């Protein structure tokens, strides 16, 4: 999937992946896509909750080898 910015949140624990995601999205314009890689298992539910509450769209969420990858489209 195409993306405009990548955030490496590996090794970070709650609430840092969410806070960094918010910060990174602020640097994008509406419609652009942020890719986030995280290792915090809690981030799967948290990213969904973040998207639901902020109106940004979680395009996809996947796991591979203990890492979680998210694509978030800025509102």
């Amino acid at each position, binding site marked *: 999937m195409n993306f405009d910015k990548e955030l490496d949140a590996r090794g*970070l*624990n709650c*609430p*840092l992946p*969410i806070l960094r995601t918010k910060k990174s999205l602020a640097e994008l314009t509406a419609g652009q896509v942020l890719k986030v890689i995280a290792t915090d298992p809690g981030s799967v539910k948290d990213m969904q909750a*973040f998207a639901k*509450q*902020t109106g940004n769209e979680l395009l996809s969420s996947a796991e591979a080898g203990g890492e979680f990858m998210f694509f978030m489209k800025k509102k």
Partner: protein
Amino acid sequence: MSKKLAIIATKGTLDWAYPPYILASTAAALGYDVQVFFTFYGLQLVRKDLSALKVSPLGNPGMPMKMPFGPKWFRAINWNIPNIIQANIPGFETLATALMKQTIKNNGVASIAELREMCQEADVKFLACQMTVELFGFEHSDFIDGLEFVGAATFFDFAGESDICLYI
């Protein structure tokens, strides 16, 4: 209009410093308007110098006492040290605090200074209780910039309109 979160932070130890800052920063990231009222021991969380924040396992049976280094089997040991021994070893809290800080780092958990900065960047408003500042003999210069020294009535102006109000 954005939702509002009001937090009353009353505890002044390293472990209890986390809940108000984690919740405030996360809520701000979700678009909440957030205010934190620091009172009594909670004032320790807004001092320029955060070195007073310590964690004490003494009389705290809920706190696992595990080592942040060494092989896996060693880290898994829960050191059950009786209160009477903890109380009699000088510097026990300092040691426990150093070990806790290492554990926090190992787990990729933010430091209090880092979370506090993120709150400020996200425009979380910090209020400090003027009465307890005087009661404990603090000076305004002991505290970080951007803090407003107010009374309970000012806090209720925001808290009364809040969607969530937490006492921590």
